[in-house]
């Protein structure tokens, strides 16, 4: 029924032991469909649940972006068939309505940031890789782990249902600034749609806290014999810092939401003051401060972007090293820079608020701290480059996405230096330049990290390979497409074009980019359809892919490749392997690779 038996080897697993006394075999215990595939407590199955739910959201979120790009790219065209499919609220006269546009932009942002790139990315890979790479039978608490998924699932259901309410889903932007998000009279989406949005996000926060605590405890306490912290693969380090960031910052977001709920429903004035709504009149609230919410939001919001990025960085480090057949360069510097990023991530949030009337002196401190974060980022980039240098590179699809990740991270990180300098940010804030910056550095780059991870660990997840040719097509079109979409967008920002505009046609200053917008929208549609190709590859290969025949197909050092091709509950049939070295002994002493389980030879060189 479950893997409690095998968990007896671990002290931390004791929490859930009492429930199941009957099962004491490691394998072949009878599992029903429900316990194996639905309410599973196996970290590998939970990982797949996160992954597939994340994929569903990625498709929905992607489709939403295609729809609103349709409006931006083809403002004068009519698509009557959309009206038939979506109905009058969304499409009128064959054109996306303004309310639909804002609903789509908001939902797209929310689900991609939280549901796809947080739950789908770190939910998947933290669950899958942590026990396998630290050498544990499962998570510290498989039961909480299962709950974490089901909270995410219910968050998904609530969020999805918000799309169907009569006044539409929440449409005030993923950052949900009040008073707009607090007052249904200010925007129809701030009514029932916002109630559901808040409930979904609260459930999501619970999910991510349950998950995060589990990841931290597992990494700290369930490492196998010999696996000291400094022998951990960088994937684990990055997932560790990700979890720490989440555990410390999501509660702050939740507190911000709770105050918002009070303002919305119980007549408090945390964020509200001096408001007169046309058609309604003056509101009684006085003395609140709308900016307070922005502080609470960005106190999560900035760490959140690193929550999204760090797992990708960790996987990319691992994949670059394995496929260059050479150790990651500067392991300790990589861990150190992750640590520095994790600390600094908490100290830069107000760089999103330079033009809110922030005290200029305070602003200057945030400029300093923000640009400081570029230093560890630079270290990482140079270390990745040196890892490739004089390697013997195998271009697996995973490796290609990892290289693409580095390229995108450079491109988007450098524009961060523009934005972090407040005097420039005054000009660039809330223009398309921001949209270009964060899509490249966070959106696409982390997506690439996720793809790299999927291609790399798919054989471990399903015991089969993805089709490589499709992988290459997927990579190249996505890579070229991503740059074609987001590179020219910087120019729109440099023309001052504001973001979140339904139409630019009435503006003398911003209407000169019609042709470019059309181009961007067209490329976006092509790139989207290539992602569908990837999904076909993914699901087809689960059942029909080429079978994995060797235990360690990449010649990799980490522990997951010492487990059986299709590991059962508990991951290793016998003893958990013991670790004798770090994860990056590639090309050492003339040997192609030396797995972590190989004891150190007394004659071996010291590095």
């Amino acid at each position: 029924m479950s893997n409690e038996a095998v968990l007896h080897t671990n002290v931390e697993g004791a929490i859930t032991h009492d429930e199941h006394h009957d099962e004491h075999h490691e394998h072949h215990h009878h599992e029903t469909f429900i316990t194996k595939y639905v309410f599973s407590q196996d970290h590998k199955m939970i990982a797949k649940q996160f992954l597939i739910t994340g994929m569903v959201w990625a498709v929905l979120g992607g489709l939403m972006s295609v729809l609103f790009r349709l409006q931006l790219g083809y403002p004068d065209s009519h698509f009557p068939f959309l009206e038939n499919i979506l109905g009058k609220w969304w499409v009128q006269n064959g054109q996306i309505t303004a309310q639909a546009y804002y609903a789509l932009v908001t939902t797209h942002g929310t689900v991609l940031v939280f549901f796809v790139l947080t739950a789908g990315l770190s939910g998947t890979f933290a669950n899958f890789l942590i026990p396998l790479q630290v050498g544990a039978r499962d998570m510290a608490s498989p039961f909480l782990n299962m709950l974490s998924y089901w909270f995410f699932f219910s968050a998904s259901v609530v969020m999805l249902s918000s799309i169907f309410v009569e006044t539409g889903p929440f449409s005030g932007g993923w950052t949900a600034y009040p008073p707009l998000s607090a007052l249904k009279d200010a925007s129809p989406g701030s009514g029932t749609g916002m109630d559901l949005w808040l409930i979904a996000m609260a459930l999501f926060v619970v999910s991510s806290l349950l998950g995060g605590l589990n990841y931290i405890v597992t990494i700290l306490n369930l490492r196998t014999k010999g696996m000291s912290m400094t022998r951990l693969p960088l994937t684990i380090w990055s997932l560790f810092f990700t979890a720490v960031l989440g555990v410390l910052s999501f509660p702050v977001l939740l507190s911000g939401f709770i105050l918002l709920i009070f303002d919305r429903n119980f007549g408090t004035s945390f964020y509200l003051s001096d408001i007169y709504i046309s058609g309604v009149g003056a509101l009684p609230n006085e003395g609140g401060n709308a900016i307070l919410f922005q502080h609470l939001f960005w106190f999560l919001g900035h760490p959140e972007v690193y929550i999204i990025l760090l797992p990708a960085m960790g996987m990319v480090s691992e994949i670059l090293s394995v496929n260059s057949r050479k150790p990651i360069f500067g392991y300790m510097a990589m861990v150190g820079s992750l640590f520095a990023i994790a600390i600094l991530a908490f100290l830069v949030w107000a760089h999103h608020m330079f033009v809110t009337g922030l005290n200029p002196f305070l602003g200057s401190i945030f400029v300093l701290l923000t640009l400081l974060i570029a230093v560890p980022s630079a270290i990482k980039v140079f270390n990745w480059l040196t890892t490739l240098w004089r390697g013997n590179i195998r271009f697996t699809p995973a490796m290609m996405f990892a290289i693409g990740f580095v390229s995108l991270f450079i491109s988007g990180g450098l524009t961060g230096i523009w934005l972090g300098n407040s005097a420039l940010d005054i000009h660039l804030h809330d223009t398309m330049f921001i949209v270009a910056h964060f899509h490249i550095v966070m959106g696409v780059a982390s997506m690439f990290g996720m793809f790299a991870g999927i291609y790399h660990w798919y054989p471990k997840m399903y015991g089969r390979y993805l089709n490589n040719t499709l992988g290459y097509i997927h990579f190249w079109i996505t890579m070229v497409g991503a740059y074609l979409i987001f590179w020219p967008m910087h120019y729109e920002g440099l023309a001052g074009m504001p973001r979140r505009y339904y139409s630019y046609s009435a503006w003398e200053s911003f209407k000169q980019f019609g042709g470019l917008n059309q181009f961007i929208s067209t490329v976006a549609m092509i790139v989207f359809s290539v992602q569908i190709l990837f999904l076909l590859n993914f699901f087809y290969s689960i059942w029909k892919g080429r079978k994995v025949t060797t235990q360690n197909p990449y010649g990799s050092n980490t522990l997951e490749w010492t487990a059986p091709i299709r590991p059962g509950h508990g991951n290793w049939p016998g003893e958990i392997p013991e670790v004798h070295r770090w994860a990056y002994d590639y090309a050492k002493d003339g040997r192609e690779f030396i797995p972590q389980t190989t004891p150190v030879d007394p004659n071996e060189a010291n590095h």
Partner: protein
Amino acid sequence: MSTFFTIAVIALVFLIIFQIAKASEYVAVLKGEEKSRKENNKVNGFFMVSFLIMGLIGIYWCNELFYGKTLLAHDPASVQGERVDSMMRLTLVITGFVFIITQVALFWFAYRYQETDKRKPYFFPHNNTMEVIWTVIPAIALTVLVVIGLRNWFSFTGEAPSNALQVEVTGHQFGWTFRYAGNDNKFGKKYYKLIDASNSLGLQWKDSADLNIKDDPDSHDDIVLDATMYVIKDKPVKLLINSRDVVHDVGLTEFRMKQDAVPGTPTTLWFTPKFTTREMQEKLNNPNFEYEISCDQMCGNGHYSMRGVIKVVSQFEFDAWMAGQSPAYYGAYPDKDPSKKPLPAVAAADSSAKKVAMVSSKAK
């Protein structure tokens, strides 16, 4: 119909790609996986450099196409804007340099060090000197940028010069309202609960016991306008920014300035315009040019339409324009308007004459 057709074509293309991919996998198995992996490796290594070269050309081309459409292509319209632009150019040079170096290294290494049987990868786990160098150099470059940036930041956000023209800007869903202080140069008090159809800012025009509000005579000569505001060339302007409902943002792209409008928490911004609207129209060869105020903070479904206009004019034109404005107070209380005071004799009798007078004499 055409939709259906498009979908059918896309599905077909997918199917073909899928089949080709499957077939190539079988071929790979037949050929030997090792061999086909090496072939793939060569192809992708070649694509890596090609991507680099095409990419760099593409960047150049993109710049040719769009640079002229950005604001960098013409002089910034404010004194502050000049500093923003020069700082932006320096930042571009520094980040551009790093961009080229790192991207070239990335794709070149990928190509150069693709797998061959001849090479043994180099065991190179760390090197302290190198790591120190690439920690220190970025740190220095960033320090330079921060110093320049903060100098500008403090000058932009510092006190406006005392001779600055003051204008109050209030955002609402979805438009802008402007207020000038009038003859006394003092903005009268306002309170949001006084807002109504004739008093869009809630100026304190009369006593109101239930709100505990006193009449503020300073407000009687305040001038309130919608949509368009006037400022003077070469004279600093200080905006006092408010919002009536949700958070908006006064976006002044041509002047390189921006500041949120927050309900209940006033903010400010100042700048010095350099060219009149007319000069700018000539410079850009565009008779339709206007300095537009864009709302740069999501404020609801009409966010994209929240447009305002700033007319930059000479002092002379400004004075003439100002002379034609009458305080908002008289709009609400026409009988208090001295210029329209009916002559005692005709007093109650002829209200139509009053109207004529109102239109014809917009004196100060």
